[in-house]
């Protein structure tokens, strides 16, 4: 009986250990770590496709983690690169990759892409939207590929469709008025809106940095260059750039526009505001922001109905022969690991996600970003999703994706180099400093702000 007791006790203890060891990390699988910024909704989509990936690759374990914002991902990786503890895979923006390259631990993906056994076929490469795919080889040596596109977005112009129709306003297609009869300039439209509703701030622009950089692309004026000498990298103190910022300052001084930093929150808050203060509603009628944030640009229902419909159009341009909109949204980059099996497993996972039209379509519907694969636009559910495009919260994401997609030939990215992040931060701050410099600010004051911004970039990168 004693023996029986010992046997049973041993079996039960062993079983308990098996149950409790479900959380063990040491399960003999090749582990791929993936840092990203995905919130819970997107992590669920990713998890679903990891399950499918594991059906084909049961010996690979994907451990993924929302590290924080894009900057947190970058900062965490820079810290870990120094200690040799970097993840295998991470979300990235081009300027992040430029920072990582100094570590020599970023994998040239062409080594895998061109591999005859595990690489991409010509059809798979051709399935990527060309402009997005090309971003990965913009780091000085175009024979090397340091990132692949994951999902993309751009900036679009949201407008209060109901108000525009009621007041028979034309949509702005360019920034500045050519002459007095020009009713399709942003300048004319926001001036007119201010006359109709003096309590409004007609235009809200979320990203100051995007606005400045986009203007330099549209006007083909200097911004930055990936030059060897630090003094030659920050070129944005240019008379044409001073000129457009001075015009924006006039708009601001007239109460025609605001930005996220000036307003103190996403300007979608102003665009959708219905709250009355002293019997008046402080609101905007145009909001320029990310195409991925469309649902935030829709007002809440009042009772059973929406107080106004929201239209979406491309942002205005400076030159109809040089159409430019900023390319946003994450790419992914791969880091070398000591264990070659991890490197190979990481590539298999990248290949699975980025050649999978269903994943691309589903991730896009959940995120508001657009797919990077042409084939995703042929997935029946995504075709239905786009067909539903409309002007309210239920259907605005589809409309946004359509407008975003229609502009894919006009996407640009800025040169990425060590210090390009500083340039971006500084021009964003510069725009705020100039527009809020006060009505008495002189040309000399504004020139001084430009000089200070350039000098700050140079100092930070010496």
């Amino acid at each position, binding site marked *: 009986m004693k023996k029986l007791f010992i046997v049973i006790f041993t079996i039960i203890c062993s079983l308990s250990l098996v149950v409790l060891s479900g959380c063990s990390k040491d399960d003999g699988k090749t582990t791929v770590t993936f840092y990203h910024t995905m919130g*819970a909704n997107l992590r669920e989509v990713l998890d679903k496709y990891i399950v499918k990936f594991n059906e084909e690759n049961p010996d690979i374990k994907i451990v993924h983690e929302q590290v924080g*914002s894009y900057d*947190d991902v970058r900062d965490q990786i820079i*810290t870990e690169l120094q200690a040799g503890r970097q993840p295998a895979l991470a979300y990235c923006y081009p300027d992040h990759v430029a920072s990582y390259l100094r570590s020599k631990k970023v994998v040239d993906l062409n080594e895998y892409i061109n591999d005859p056994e595990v690489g991409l076929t010509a059809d798979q490469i051709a399935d990527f939207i060309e402009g997005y795919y090309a971003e990965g080889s913009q780091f000085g040596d175009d024979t090397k590929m340091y990132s692949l596109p994951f999902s993309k977005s751009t900036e679009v112009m949201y407008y209060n469709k109901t108000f525009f129709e009621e007041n028979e306003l034309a949509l702005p297609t360019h920034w500045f008025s050519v002459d007095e009869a020009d009713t399709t300039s942003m300048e004319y439209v926001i001036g007119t809106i201010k006359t109709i509703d003096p309590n409004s701030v007609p235009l809200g622009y979320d990203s100051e940095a995007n606005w400045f950089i986009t203007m330099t692309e549209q006007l083909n004026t200097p911004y930055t260059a990936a030059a060897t000498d630090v003094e030659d990298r920050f070129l944005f103190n240019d008379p044409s750039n001073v000129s457009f910022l001075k015009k924006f300052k006039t708009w601001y001084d007239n109460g025609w526009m605001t930005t996220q930093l000036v307003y103190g929150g*996403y300007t979608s808050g102003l665009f959708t505001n219905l709250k009355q203060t002293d019997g008046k509603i402080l609101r905007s009628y145009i909001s320029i922001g990310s195409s991925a944030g469309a*649902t935030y640009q829709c007002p809440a229902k009042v009772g059973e109905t929406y107080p106004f419909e929201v239209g979406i159009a491309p942002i205005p341009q400076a030159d109809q022969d040089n159409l430019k909109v900023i390319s946003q949204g994450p790419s992914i980059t791969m880091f070398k690991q000591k264990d070659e099996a991890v490197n190979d497993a990481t590539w298999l996972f990248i290949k699975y996600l980025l050649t999978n039209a*269903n994943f691309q*379509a589903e991730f896009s519907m959940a995120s508001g970003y657009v797919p990077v694969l042409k084939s995703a636009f042929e997935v029946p559910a995504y075709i*239905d999703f786009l067909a539903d495009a409309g002007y309210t919260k239920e259907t605005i*994401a589809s409309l946004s994706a359509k407008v975003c997609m229609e502009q894919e030939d006009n996407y640009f990215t800025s040169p990425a180099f060590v210090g390009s992040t500083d340039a971006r931060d500084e021009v964003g701050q510069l725009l705020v400093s100039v527009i809020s410099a006060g009505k008495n600010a002189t040309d000399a004051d504004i020139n001084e702000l430009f000089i200070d911004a350039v000098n700050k970039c140079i100092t930070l990168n010496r």
Partner: protein
Amino acid sequence: MRMKRFIIFLLLIIASLGLASCKTTDPTSWDYVRDQSLTDFAIQATLNENNLNSDFDVTGRGYVTVETFIDGDTVHFRNYSKTRILKVRFIAIDTPESTGKVEPWGKPASLYTKSKLEDAQAIVLESNEEGNPVFDSTGERYLAWVWYQAKDSDVWRNLNVEILQDGLAMGKNSSSNRYGTIAQAALTDARANDLNLYSGENDPLFFYGETVELTIKALVTNKDAYNGIKVRFEGVVTKVDGNAVYIEQYDEDANQAFGVYVYGGYASLAPRFLVVGYQLIITGTADNNENFGFQVSGLSFSLIDPTVNDVVIVAKNVETTPTLILADELLTNEYLDATYVKMENLQVVSIYTTTNDDSSSQGAMTLTCQTADQQTIIVRTVVLMSNNELVTEEYFQNKTITVIGIVNYFEGVPQIQLFNLNDVTIIQ
């Protein structure tokens, strides 16, 4: 024989232990003791103690008191002069969700923040840029560093850093701020020491078990039993309220409908599923939240190859008819919460309008009404608009009305929540 009994006894104990490990522990408490040998980054920064007797919303620094605990990185405080309630989002950190959507380590983070501030003898808010309090991207919540002195201590501790160092938050632009170096070091240290969120272990307060399939009646008549549990049920959407909906299901045995508040969150596909008249199968986590009441959240949506956990549309355009109820029923039936009802012939006897500038409910009204048999019924409106004009007290004054809305409770008293002017009929 005695040995046999002992073996059975042993089996029962071990089986009980096994079962216990599958359940969540008490979701309202979490004890965490930090290893004292670890570096304490929370005292590495120094609080500038000048000008603390001032309002943070004016000067960017000042003493505050807690008004409401929301979650691990958001607390509502009352300012120094007690004139305003400040919604505050902690700078540099992002704790997992514990309201709206419950994520692993969200509850521990929430309880951690609460425990630190609940026992504090003094709390100070400080803006990132001196003298410049700013909002976060929502435009409604101040971004702040939160400092506190623990009971019987005169040492100011930086709670943002402390949450990072104990591995209860991700960074959120954690290195680009006034205490960025310390914040980043605290986060790196938590990761290196595998603390909590970074331990790779399960959150002891999170429910990892199987989904419980049940009726709405079973759910809402046993709220405490299902608190924190993943549930699946079917029902029809009766009202949309922002990012949330009310869903109800008729129960023949009880001869009444039972309703539940379901939070859809900001998923871009949510508005396509959460539509009035849609019959849905919902899978989400039940949460008996002290701030937001009982709700089901954590929904997922998919248009391609949905999993068992995604919301399923069973039917569209299902007719939703409010249940006609009498005052007695509203005042005595405790299970009418979140149901869609109609009440007739209510005489409006007094009106209160929310006037607080800080409130998104500014302009909403509470109508105190009487029925024909002199019973008092409360009707609460949202901010009502008619042709882009605010509907004011005058609209309801001395009127007899019939209303359609959702039953909810305010400070334990049932009321009918109106969402739309169309749901009011003026009888006379």
